[in-house]
């Protein structure tokens, strides 16, 4: 039995050692901090708010806001937490682990429909999505793509809704083009490998195929629907009730970061590249070629725009019952006067380890 005892002892010791390395009690850190990509530099901040985002240019203002949060007047340090997929974001919001996040608009509507008390307080950006086909594809419109397979990021994405709306507009039946949901990062490679014939997605996954030389833009979102909306800032009502000052600060921060990003596109790419862990050149391409590929102004959600999205979602059966716009949108935090954030570009951007 003594050798068995030794084994048990060894296992316990090894587990304890790994647990120590995992939690590093000598390294005191908040539970949120170990999951954040980057923590805002607010000095003397009294409170912290974690905001979720995905590494898509739609959510670019999120890490910028966190970087600029030293200008916070409510003493809030905004920390951006990077997620990799929307279902996880939705689950985190449902369980109130995340009270403010960027999210695709129809998904926010779906959450509201399911009774999760969330509000759309602001938008992520305008345009910034493209329909991409293979470079050698002679198609001039969707009509030339009948019988082909298209990838969309999620059934709950506005890309899915708008693609179908465009198909109807061109007189194509739903069944004429096969739509498959695919993780955005896989889309450029799937296109190159002929697994799909085209895709509609937010940046930088559309530009990736262009930069790689495998795809070309068939439609810019702005050509299908000027000022196309993909994502919005979604805030849980608990946070709105308990800390309206934080929400006001966050919306102000995003508005000002957006105004800054609009005018400092090369710098914005440089600033977020390490936070996104993406290639700076690719982000620069997205933000500058052409310049109106992405826009970070006009971020106030209007009833008209969101109603249009909801109507499409209802028509497609993605939503079952209408959610009134008054329940969905909360515009009280949007500032009237938006000045670009004052951001000093650091020599080197320090990104916290996971």
């Amino acid at each position: 039995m003594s050798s068995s005892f030794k084994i048990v002892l060894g296992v316990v010791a090894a587990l304890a050692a790994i647990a120590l390395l995992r939690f590093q009690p000598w390294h005191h850190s908040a539970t949120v901090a170990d999951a954040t990509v980057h923590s805002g530099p607010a000095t003397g901040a009294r409170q912290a708010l974690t905001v979720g985002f995905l590494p898509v240019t739609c959510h670019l203002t999120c890490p910028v806001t966190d970087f600029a949060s030293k200008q916070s007047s409510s003493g809030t340090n905004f920390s951006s937490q990077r997620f990799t997929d929307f279902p996880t974001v939705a689950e985190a919001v449902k369980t109130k682990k995340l009270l403010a996040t960027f999210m695709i608009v129809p998904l926010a509507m779906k959450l509201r429909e399911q009774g999760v008390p969330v509000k759309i307080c602001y938008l992520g950006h305008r345009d910034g999505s493209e329909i991409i086909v293979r470079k050698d594809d002679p198609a001039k419109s969707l009509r030339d793509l009948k019988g082909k397979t298209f990838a969309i990021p999620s059934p709950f994405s506005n890309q899915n809704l708008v693609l179908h709306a465009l198909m109807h507009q061109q007189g194509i039946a739903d069944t004429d083009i096969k739509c498959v949901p695919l993780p955005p990062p896989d889309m450029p490679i799937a296109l190159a490998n002929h697994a799909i014939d085209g895709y509609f997605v937010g940046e930088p996954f559309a530009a990736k195929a262009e930069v790689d030389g495998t795809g070309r833009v068939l439609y810019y979102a702005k050509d299908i629907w000027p000022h196309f909306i993909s994502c919005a800032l979604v805030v849980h009502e608990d946070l709105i009730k308990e800390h309206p000052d934080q929400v006001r600060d966050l919306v102000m921060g995003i508005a000002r970061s957006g105004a800054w990003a609009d005018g400092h596109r090369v710098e914005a790419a440089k600033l977020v590249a390490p936070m996104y862990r993406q290639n700076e050149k690719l982000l620069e391409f997205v933000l500058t070629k052409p310049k109106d590929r992405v826009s970070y102004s006009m971020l106030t959600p209007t009833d008209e725009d969101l109603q249009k999205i909801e109507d499409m979602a209802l028509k497609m059966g993605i939503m079952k019952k209408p959610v009134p716009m008054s329940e969905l949108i909360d515009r009280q935090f949007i500032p009237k006067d938006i000045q670009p954030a004052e951001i000093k570009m650091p020599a080197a951007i320090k990104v916290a380890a996971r």
Partner: protein
Amino acid sequence: MIDEKAPHETLTPEIRTRPFEKKKQGSPKRFDIASLLLPLLVLGLVLAVWAIVPTLKIRGHPLVEDYALPPPLTVLQSIPDEVHTGRLFSDTVASLFRIGAGFSLAVALGVPLGLWLGSRRSVRAALLPGVNFFRNLSPLAWIPFAILWFGIGDPAAIFLIFMASFFPLAMATMAAVATIPVVHFRVAKDYGFQGRELLLHVTLPAILPQVITALRVTAGVAWIVVVAAEMVGCKDGLGYGIYDARSALRLDLVALYMIIIGLLGIGLDRLLSQLTRLPGVRWGYER
């Protein structure tokens, strides 16, 4: 009372005297060199193919594009940055912690459940269908519930590893108990063994070799599950590293993490295989 070693001696006398040691002694040095060189040779070949394939061209077009298969050198170049930021280390520790916690929990509960199932017909009748049901559910199907119940992070991943290894372990232990020859128990009864003694001196020694094999198999499954679970339910860990690198369109990092995962998997299995060297279970491997 009877000497502690007696039942073991009584039950497996012919096995204990098998000349296993002799077989092992046959030119150990050459064996060691071959077992070291052969895998290295294969590894070198694989690396060479990997390095050559991206450079091949057919009618001026590369056979495989760089974005579809990052060359080994690119993967190598990605190491310093990952080491420097501490990500590689913290991801590895996170995954090891989750598998350590989840797997230990599964062993601590699964093996006793298996013993119970194996020794009581009524318990088996009552619980076996349930165990079988859950054993056939992919642990990944639990991901949404794991996140809703436990949030994002360690507890969700530990739960998934537990679900992946608990049921197969219980089943394997139960099957092992069921295969113990009845004669062992009869002899034990003659010696007046009951309860704890019966468990420690008859049942456990008889099933340990099979249980250890089950441990190795389920640890492999658990390792697969931790990596998959981290892709959605976590904010760190090797699986998350892969998913994150993929979102960032960095296939070189994906390849690097895959290599680390594979190597750690081998290490884990090697560690568990050490259990077969225990004097009490060696009989199970000497054939």
